[in-house]
């Protein structure tokens, strides 16, 4: 009573929990803070996905900008469905479309062709680690580039941070099919890795 501090309350769920993506998406067309929260939550995954697709950080920035701008314009017409992850899946649908358009454009304007070997890792904590990581990443990207397009799509979504359930929803395939496909991808990559190591030895 009075101005004395209140005694400790031991339990009870915290009020003020993080809003869900669906709640934010309702507010975002009117509220820049809500849209910025959506942006902050999904920027890393979308940005990396764009980078994996185009292989250049500067172009990935352009693509990411276009993805979020399209997402903002589409928010009033978006229905999240019953899944909490659907905002993320929806953003990735936009991202896949944007990057596909980008690839189409690049294939028709081949002034600066992209190859898997063009991928450059960002700087690591030390120059040695960065160099090692660079080699590691180049090797992996060389292998990934040899996968079938559908397998590569799946793997790029996985690398962007989506889990199997989200990928299944995004690619409109069953959960079991995605899991089986993942196993086939790993098996194929492993075989290629062995072959490459055998050749280098």
């Amino acid at each position, binding site marked *: *009573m*009075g101005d004395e*501090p*209140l005694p400790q*309350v031991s339990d*009870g*769920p915290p*009020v*003020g*929990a*993080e*809003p*869900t993506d*669906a*709640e*934010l998406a*309702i*507010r975002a*067309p*009117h*509220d*820049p803070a*809500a*849209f910025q929260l959506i*942006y*902050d939550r999904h*920027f890393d995954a979308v*940005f*990396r996905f764009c*980078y994996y697709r185009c292989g250049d950080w500067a172009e*990935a*920035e352009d693509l*990411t*900008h276009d993805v979020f*701008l399209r997402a*903002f314009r589409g928010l*009033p017409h978006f*229905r*999240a469905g*019953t899944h909490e992850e659907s905002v993320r899946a929806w953003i990735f649908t936009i991202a896949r479309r944007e990057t596909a358009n980008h690839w189409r454009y690049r294939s028709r304007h081949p002034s600066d062709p992209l190859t898997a070997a063009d991928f450059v*890792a*960002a*700087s*690591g904590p030390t120059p040695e680690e960065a160099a090692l*990581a660079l080699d*590691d*990443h180049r090797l992996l*990207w060389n292998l990934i580039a040899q996968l079938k397009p559908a397998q590569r799509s799946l*793997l790029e979504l*996985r*690398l*962007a941070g989506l*889990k199997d359930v989200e990928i299944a929803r995004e690619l409109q395939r069953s959960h*079991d099919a995605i*899991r*089986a496909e*993942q*196993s086939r991808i*790993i098996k194929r*990559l492993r075989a290629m890795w062995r072959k490459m190591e055998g050749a280098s030895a």
Partner: protein
Amino acid sequence: MTGPRGDDELNYFWNEIQAHGNPDRGSVDRETAELVARMHRLAAVPIPEGARQRVWDRLAAQPELTRIEGIGPRTASPPVPWKQPILMMNTSYALPNPAAKRRFGWSRGRRFFEGPIAWISFALLLLVIAQGGWLFVESGRHRSRTAPDQLLPAVLTRESATPSARDSVTTLYGDSARTGVMPGPGPVEPVGILWSTKIAEGRGLVFGSAVVSNGLLFAGAVNGDGESGTLVALDSATGVERWRVASVSPTSGSPTVVDGVVYFRDDLGFLYAVDASSGNERWRIPLEIPASAWASSPAVVDGVVYINVSGTGSSPSLSGGTAYVVNSAGGKVSAFDANTGLEKWRFTSPKAGVYALDAKTGSQRWAMEMMEIGPFWTTGIDEVTNSVAVAGDVAYVVDGKAKTLYALDAATGQEQWKFELGAQALQNTPAIANGTVYVTDELGYVYAVDAANGAERWHFGAPSTLRSSAVIAGDTVYVCDESGVVVAIDASTGTERWQTRTTPSAFRHRAGLAPIVVNGMIFVGNFDGSIYAFGQVFVTPEPGTPAA
């Protein structure tokens, strides 16, 4: 590691490595685990410094985003009235509110009716409806032969009067002190439905109380999609709709009308000010994120709007320069300038409890801890809507979880007495009149308690659960229960005067938060999405019945 089980193990390992970085590889072979780990490192490639901010800066410079920046409350620019009435505005913002979906279980329902048993279910439903309708018609006929019935065609007996301040209930529970005292008078028997108007879109509901001002009734609604809301203005005498505006998310709370402006908030955090006569929007401001509050209503006093930003759905009470609020730990209450929407102060509750705040500065005067108010277990969202009722120098509040009514010194918070209820009471605000406190609980009891010492005077059992508050007009207490029955009780003796059902259909729907009683009429919101007006009716005599 082959076959479905191997797929599961690899998948589990991959999910875990994404979530936790370095999980136990279990039965996944070393080479595969190493390959997945390499890919995870590839996935975690560091993002160039500043990229996030650069992309955001470009986005924020886009015309679409700069346009919405101007709407915010914290800009110093004066409010710009909307040029067009916002009739049916924002109807495209139809994104689901997961909490609302959980509330009604609609997401499960849709899939159910897509199945092959849809036709059988539909046929069974038709049978049930036909049976219910037949029973209802039969019971209606029976009643009409024996006694005058409020469900017969009603004729308005009340003469239309010029609206005056006496005809107004401008905020939840009658006044900003939330005393539950209505201007009245209540209707004279026989009481029946004068009109009903559906205001919610689709199969929505009305939860908050209506308010009446200057011949117009204002009420909010949760639309049937569970995602959007509506605020409607009706002619209070006839129920004819004058205008409606759409809110971004459901509007389960009550509006407040002051000086020709209607103030209300929606459940996910926008506060609106609209013109009472036209529905034109004056301003809207986004509250904090998250700002969920079920059925929270503003109090508007001396040009300041007080509103729970987040936490419970409690509605602030104002009396003697003090704002009283019930909130959960971390819940927030704010004060906004009624003309501009600019925020004046914000208070965050450190613990669950009742807080008395300086209305000018928001500084805490006193507090009393209450049991933690968690989300309602069936819906997962906070449905506590208890408010503090202040009469004279005493503040009355129900600790809903502790099943206790407290009388506290309004100036110091010192407990004067307490009264134990029979059940929890999460949506039950006390009403005070004539030295008596009237309070309800979820067992369905109405208690009359001596305001001086907390001694029980009488109690009355309503037909069903009471998740609503009592109000008082003259010498009559009014409650509406979970089965949609409105009951009038003698305030001095606790005996029933009359009761009537809100919905004339065979299905019973829960009534809203509290009725309002003004100018010989009672207005009640209902979970069937309609507003019902009750008053004195004449009963059409059956053909052949001799005149009295």
